C-alpha cells in the first residue's frame, strides 16, 4: 500500500486538537412501511453491507396485562413458544435455525412480547416462515413447559442474589405501587403455580396480528421482501385483545430509603429514582439532554464527580426509562460500603445543581453534539437500526421521529435543560434503594429518610411488619 506523502505534524499541530471537518449527512436507509389488512404493521429497512437479515415480530402486550393475576406469565409464555409447533418439535426448530445460520429469541417485557430471528439473507424466506410458525402454531409441549418452568425457578434464585436485580426490583415496587409496572419478576411460588393452560390462553389472546408489528432490517430488496411477508403472514387472522386498565402509580410523598439486606456484601448497590415521563411527553428531548449532562454519558457531571474525582465507583450512571404508560428516572452506582452516604450526597447535590443553576454553554454544546453523534452511530448497524425502529413503531411515535431527532436536540437551550431538571429530577420525592450489608450501611442510609428494610425475597424485615405497608 502506498499513500501520498503528508508533512509530519509540527509541534503546534500537536498542541491542540484539530477542528471537526464538515459533517456528512446521515443517509437514511430506504424504509418501507405497510399495514396488512389483518392489522399487522410491517416496517422494512435495507442495510446491505453484510449478507444477513434481522426480523423481529412484536405483540404490544406483555407482563403488565397479566401482572394482577400471574406475574411473569407473558415471559414464561414467550420462553415456551420456541419449544415446539404443530409441525416442528423443539429439536427440529433448533436444526432449522442452524441450517439457515440463524439465531432465535422469544421474550416478553412489561409492554411487549416478541419473536425475533437473525440469520443469513439467503434464507430470509425460511426465517420468516419459522417466525410465523411460532407466532401461529406454537404447541406448548407439556414436558418442555415443565422443564422451562424449573429453569425459570432456578434463574430467579440466582437473580435474587444479584444486587443490581434486587435494587431495580425494589425501586419498581416503590415507584409503581398498585400499577403492574411495579412487578419485574414473579416469586418462586408464582412460577410454581403457572399452568400450561394459562400459557396457551395468553398466547391465543395476545399473539395476534391486529396491533402486531414486524420489523425486518438487512440485505434484501424491499419489494420482494414485502411480497414474501404478505404471502407468509397475509392469511393470519385473529380478534384483537380487549385493552386493559391499570391503577395509577402512587403520588410522590417524600423521600424514603429502602434497604435490601445482603449480609457480607463487600459493595453497596445504590439506586435512586423517581417517576418521570414517556417518549410522548413534550419534555422528552429536554429530558434526554438533561440526563446526558447529569449522568447519561461518560463526560457527565456524575461520572466526573463520583468516579473521576472521588473514586467511589466504577459504574455510575443515570437513565431515563420510558415504558409505554409511564417513565422513570434513575441514578445508580455500585460503591464501596463506607461511602454510601457520601455517594447519595453527591447524587442529590448534582440533581439539585441541575435544578437550580443553568448548564454552561460549553456543557450544552458538548451534550447536544454527543447526542446527535451517538444517534448516528446507533443506526449504523442492522441491530442498532432495528432497535431504533422498534422504539418508534412500538410506541407509536411520529413517523419522522428518527429523521428529526437530531434537529430537535440541536434546538434545545440551557433553559430547556433547567425546565426538564426542575420537573423530572424530583430530588425531594426520590426513592432511595440500597442493597448491601445493613451493619455497614443502614446508619448512612438513614441520613436520607425513613428506612424500611427488606430481605432478598421482598419481605419487610424492619421496622416490624405491623408498622408498614408492603408496597
Amino acid at each position, binding site marked *: *500500500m*502506498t*499513500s*501520498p*506523502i*503528508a*508533512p*509530519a505534524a509540527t509541534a503546534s499541530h*500537536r*498542541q*491542540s486538537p*484539530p477542528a471537526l*471537518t464538515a*459533517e*456528512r449527512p*446521515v*443517509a437514511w436507509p430506504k424504509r418501507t412501511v405497510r399495514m396488512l389488512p389483518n392489522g399487522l404493521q410491517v416496517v422494512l429497512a435495507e*442495510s446491505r453491507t*453484510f*449478507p*444477513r437479515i434481522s426480523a423481529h415480530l412484536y405483540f404490544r402486550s406483555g407482563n403488565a396485562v397479566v401482572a394482577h393475576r400471574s406475574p411473569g406469565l407473558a415471559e414464561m409464555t414467550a420462553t415456551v413458544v420456541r419449544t415446539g409447533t404443530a409441525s416442528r418439535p*423443539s429439536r427440529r426448530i*433448533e436444526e432449522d435455525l*442452524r441450517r*439457515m445460520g440463524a439465531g432465535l429469541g422469544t421474550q416478553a417485557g412489561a409492554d411487549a412480547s416478541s419473536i425475533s430471528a*437473525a440469520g*443469513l439473507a*439467503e434464507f430470509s424466506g425460511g426465517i420468516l416462515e419459522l417466525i410465523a410458525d411460532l407466532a401461529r402454531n406454537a404447541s406448548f409441549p407439556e414436558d418442555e413447559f415443565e422443564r422451562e418452568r424449573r*429453569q425459570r425457578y*432456578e*434463574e430467579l*434464585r*440466582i437473580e435474587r*442474589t*444479584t*444486587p443490581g436485580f434486587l435494587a431495580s426490583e425494589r425501586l419498581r415496587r416503590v415507584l409503581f405501587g398498585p400499577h403492574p409496572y411495579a412487578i419485574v419478576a414473579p416469586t418462586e411460588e408464582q412460577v410454581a403455580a403457572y399452568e400450561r393452560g394459562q400459557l396457551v390462553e395468553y398466547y391465543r389472546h395476545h399473539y395476534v396480528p391486529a396491533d402486531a408489528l414486524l420489523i425486518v432490517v438487512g*440485505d434484501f430488496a424491499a419489494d420482494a421482501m414485502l411480497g414474501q411477508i404478505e404471502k407468509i403472514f397475509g392469511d393470519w387472522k385473529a380478534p384483537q385483545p380487549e385493552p386493559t386498565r391499570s391503577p395509577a402509580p402512587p403520588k410522590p410523598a417524600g423521600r424514603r430509603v429502602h434497604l435490601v*439486606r445482603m449480609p*457480607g456484601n*463487600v*459493595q453497596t448497590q445504590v439506586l435512586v429514582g423517581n417517576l418521570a415521563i414517556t417518549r410522548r411527553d413534550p419534555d422528552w428531548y429536554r429530558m434526554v439532554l438533561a440526563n446526558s449532562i447529569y449522568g447519561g*454519558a461518560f*463526560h457527565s457531571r456524575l461520572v466526573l464527580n463520583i468516579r*473521576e474525582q*472521588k*473514586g*467511589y465507583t*466504577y*459504574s455510575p450512571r443515570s437513565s431515563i426509562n420510558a415504558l409505554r404508560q409511564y417513565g422513570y428516572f434513575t441514578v445508580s452506582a*455500585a460503591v*464501596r460500603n463506607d461511602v454510601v452516604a457520601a455517594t447519595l450526597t453527591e447524587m442529590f447535590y448534582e440533581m439539585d445543581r441541575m435544578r437550580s443553576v443553568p448548564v454552561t454553554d460549553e456543557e450544552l454544546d*458538548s451534550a447536544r*453534539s454527543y*447526542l446527535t453523534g451517538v444517534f*448516528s*452511530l446507533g443506526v449504523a*448497524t442492522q*441491530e442498532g437500526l432495528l432497535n431504533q425502529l422498534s422504539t418508534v413503531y412500538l410506541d407509536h411515535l411520529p413517523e419522522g421521529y428518527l429523521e428529526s431527532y437530531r434537529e430537535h436536540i440541536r434546538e434545545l437551550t440551557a433553559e430547556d435543560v433547567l425546565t426538564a431538571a426542575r420537573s423530572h429530577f424530583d430530588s425531594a420525592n426520590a426513592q432511595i434503594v440500597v442493597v448491601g450489608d445493613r451493619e455497614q450501611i443502614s446508619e448512612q442510609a438513614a441520613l436520607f429518610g425513613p428506612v424500611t428494610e427488606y*430481605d*432478598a425475597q421482598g419481605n419487610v424485615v424492619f421496622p416490624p411488619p405491623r408498622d408498614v405497608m408492603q408496597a
Partner: protein
Amino acid sequence: MNPSPKKLHIPVEHTTLANGLRVVASPDRSAPVVTVGVYYQIGFRLEPQGRSGFAHLFEHMMFQGSENAGKMEHIRLINSSGGLLNGTTNYDVTNYFEAVPSNALERVLWLEADRMRALKVDDENLRNQRDVVKEEVRVNVMNQPYGGFPWLDLPPVAFRNWPNAHNFYGDFADLDAATLADVQSFFHTYYAPNNAVLLMLGDFDPGEAFSLAKRYFEDIPRGAAPPRADVSEPLQDEERRGEVEERLGPLPAIAIGYTLPVRGTDEWFAFGILDRVLHGGRAGRVYRRLVLEKEIAVDADGHAEILDTNGPTQMVTRIFHKPEFTSDQAIAVYDEVIREVQEQGIPLDEIEPVKVKFRSDFYSTLEGGMGSYMPRFGLMHYLACFTLFDGDPDRVNNVLDDFLAVTPQQAQAAARKYLVPQNRAVLVRRPVNLGGAE
C-alpha cells in the same frame, strides 16, 4: 450443501509507518461514521510477574491524560464530537477505540497519537484509578453471583506458567503496590508504535486517512522491541481439578476447559467447528444432553476464544446444574457427549449446518459488537488480531474458508487427540449457601 452463498469481501488496505506502526484501513461509506482503534500487543497474560492486574490498571491510566490532553480531555473531546470511546484489556492485547461521526476522524487520530507519544499522569490520577478498578473488581467479581466464573477461576487450575495462570484482574495488594514509576516504565516498554496497530474503519477516503495517520503518528519515536513473556506451558500429564467457593449463587457451577491446538494449524480450525457442534445454545450437543434430555443442568454452554488469543487458550464449557445432582454426575453426562463425538464422529448433516451457522455468526461479529453503538467493532478486532498475531490483516477475507473446509474426519480426529483428561481442567464453584441470600 447450500447453493452458492453470497461471498463477502471486506476492503482492507494496510501499510507500515517508518516507526514500525502498522496501519490498517477498511473503508465503508454506507453511514457517516468511523470506528478507530489502537491495539497494543500487551495483555494481562504478558504483564510482569508479581504485578497481577497491572495491564488493566494501566489501561485505565491511558484515559487520565497525555502530553496535550489532560484528565477528562480525552473523554470530553470524543463525547463532544458525538462519539463514544472505551478500552479493554485482553489476554494478548489491550485496545483503545472510538466510534465517531466521520467528521471527527482527524481529531480521534490526534488524540490517539498524543497518548501514544507521552502519558502525562500523576499520583493523584493513579490513586483515583486504583480505587475505580477496585470497585470494578467488586462489581464484576466479588459482589456478583458467579463473578469471574470461569474466566478468572479456571486459568489457575488449568495452567502452570504464571503468565497464563495468575489473577488477571489483580490482587488488591499488587494493585496497591503499583507506583507512578511502574506506570511510566510499562508505557515505555510496551506502548511503542512498533508494538501497535492503528485501525480505521468506515466513512473516509483511504488515501486521506493514511496521510492523516502518517501526519500524526509517524514521528512518534520507535521503541526498543518489548520483551516477550514466555507463555509456553509444561507438558500436562493428568486431568487438573479445582474447587472455589460460591458465596452468593445457589447452584453449583462447573467449568470444563480443554487446551486448544496451536493457532493456525488444521487442528485449530477443526476446533472452531467442534466448538460449535458441542456448544451454541439449545442446538449444541452439550445443552441438548445435559439440559433437555437428562435434565441434570439448568444451563450448559461454552465457547472457544479462538480468533483473538495468541497463546495457551481453552475451549470452555460452563454447566450450572440442579442441586439435587452431584457435580460428578453432571460431569459424567458431559463425558458421554465427548465420548460419542470421539467414537461416532459427526454426521455430515450435522456438521454442514454448523458451518452455515459459523459463517453467519462470523458476519454478525464483524458488523457489530460492544452493543449497537460501536459499528464494525468485530471487524476492527479481528483485523487487529490478524495483523498482530498472523501478520496479515487480509486474513479476514479468507479465514472463513479454512473453517468451512474442516471435514468430519478432521473434527473427529481432533476430538480424539485433544478432548482427553491430560488436556483438560475442571473447576467447580460450590455454593456455600444453597438457599441464597438472607
